[in-house]
């Protein structure tokens, strides 16, 4: 969480973390900061990045500013970190791209990592990252088609924009490619209205839906509805199994560490930015994490694996 004053992540040896700051030369410890729009333990977008940093194989002194959904506040935080001399700053939100294009040139020695975005706005000290969310969506969709018995699948999203669209469109395509199923998609119009998301799920259920998925932080309410009605749920962005250990079938999980590693390696080599990275099934940045607590129908797992292979080798079009 954000309340830790300073977190040391990725300890190589058994060195107790508290001492490392002082004893080791600052050259070994990388100073990093992240500015994120939602809470760092949101079980979704922000947590996926925090977990990724955690998984990095480096000595990192990380500072967190989270819950910064106002772009100008985020800009102030990014600039503040840059002024403090933080070496690598992650601007974890597409909407932060605007200010970043102003700030990055002012701090040419700092590396900024920004996403989700598929380009770096031509800035040579900015790395960008982007998830091929449609790929995981597609696999989840394939699984959903195997799980559904009524043939009706419900999807809930906030606003038809951004990563949510890629995931949801991929999901719909995956499901529809794998059988004769109906995929009904509802965008509630709000990222934050948990109750509305829950009722959107209810509306699907009244139309004979028996598999649900959704994107946005507000879906936790919808997962509750799934639980209450014993309906299968597919997660995205982070492993949502903890929300219902029996009904969450699988989650698409982002492993940003895959591309973060690459970026930091480039930085070590003197390249401070200028490249965009995609996490996808092929490079392992996207992973489908199955819940062992949910018993999949025969063949479902194989279909999913086949889909993954197909996506990787390019024989399957996820519709993105």
């Amino acid at each position: 969480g954000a309340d830790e004053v300073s977190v040391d992540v990725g300890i190589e040896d058994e060195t107790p973390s508290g001492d490392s700051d002082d004893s080791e030369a600052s050259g070994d410890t990388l100073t990093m900061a992240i500015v994120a729009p939602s809470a760092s333990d949101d079980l979704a977008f922000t947590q996926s990045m925090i977990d990724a940093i955690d998984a990095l194989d480096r000595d990192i002194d990380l500072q967190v500013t989270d819950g910064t959904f106002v772009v100008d506040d985020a800009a102030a935080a990014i600039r503040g970190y840059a002024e403090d001399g933080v070496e690598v700053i992650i601007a974890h939100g597409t909407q932060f791209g605007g200010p970043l294009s102003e700030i990055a040139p002012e701090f040419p020695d700092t590396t900024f990592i920004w996403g989700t975005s598929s380009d770096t706005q031509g800035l040579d000290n900015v790395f960008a990252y982007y998830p091929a969310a449609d790929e995981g969506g597609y696999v989840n969709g394939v699984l959903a088609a195997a799980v559904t018995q009524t043939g009706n699948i419900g999807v809930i999203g906030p606003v038809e924009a951004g990563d949510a669209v890629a995931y949801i469109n991929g999901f719909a395509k995956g499901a529809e490619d794998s059988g004769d199923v109906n995929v009904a998609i509802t965008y509630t119009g709000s990222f934050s209205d948990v109750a509305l998301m829950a009722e959107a799920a209810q509306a699907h259920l009244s139309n004979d839906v028996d598999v649900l998925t959704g994107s946005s932080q507000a879906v936790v309410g919808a997962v509750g509805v799934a639980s209450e009605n014993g309906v299968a749920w597919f997660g995205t962005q982070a492993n949502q199994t903890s929300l219902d250990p029996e009904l969450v079938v699988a989650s698409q999980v982002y492993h940003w560490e895959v591309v973060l590693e690459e970026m930091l390696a480039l930085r070590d080599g003197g390249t401070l930015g200028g490249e965009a990275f995609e996490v996808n099934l092929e490079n392992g940045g996207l992973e489908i994490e199955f819940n062992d607590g949910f018993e999949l129908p025969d063949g479902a797992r194989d279909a999913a694996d086949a889909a993954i292979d197909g996506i990787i080798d390019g024989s399957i079009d996820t519709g993105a």
Partner: protein
Amino acid sequence: MSDFFTMSILVATVASGIRLATPYLLAGLGETVGQRSGVLNLGVDGVMQLSAFFAYWTVLETDNLILGSFVGVGVGLVMGVIYAVITVVLQAQQGISGIGIFLFGLGFSDLMFRRQVGTPKPANQLPDVPIPLLSDIPVIGEALFEHSWLTYLAFAMVPLLAFMLRKTTFGMNIRAVGENPQAADSLGVSVGWTRTYAILIGNAMAGLAGAALVLELGIFQPNLTAGLGFIAVALVYFGAWRPAGVMSGALLYGLVAAVVLQWKAQGIIPRSASDIAAMAPAVLTIIALVVLAGRVQAPSALTRPFSRH
């Protein structure tokens, strides 16, 4: 896709509207009592967030939904005492201090959530309790009489509060201090205490609304209410300061939202229009008021601190 006008869909939609309406109704009724006594509370949303968190946390720790509901009410009462001190004793401007309460509730509930819970964890949800006999009535039974007991309570409060306001001495005093506190005071009715009790009722109900919201969902998130408390305040104006009117407003708002969701699920509303459709409850509330509204006067002393000089 499928048909909207099938029984099961209509039933589900009405039931969904009632569920959505419940927190608006509880909070709006409470605000009605407060406003009738002359006290505006714009902090309802903040109170709801606080009580929602504490109710959730209680249920998470104890699995006891009843205890959770009481904790929600208790948090409301605590906030009520604070608000009474601010507005009755210190006679602060009501609008702005309400916004202060809102900010505090928003921030503090979020803070507590991060420190005490962290990652969203599912807690017990309020079970639906079919009312014997009534729930067996075809169609209507399922739509109206298979809800959580907090929903029943919310709707039961409508006649109760109307009766309280119209028929009891306390209700008469509330109406008097909201309309002409000088007159009430000159006959020995304590304006301060009457308003304090009204504030306590209002906040307790806001607390219950927060509990109802979170326990229906079984999970908490920062800014869980997403502005619900402000809409509840608006519905008091819609309902012209009468419990039944507030109920009409809450039902209108909830049912329109439910119909929109149902039509979205069925593809009747195209996805390209989903944002426009999401405006419907707000727009229809205004239109309904334009069409139906007579000139109803707010309680004359609303927002006016009372002092003898």
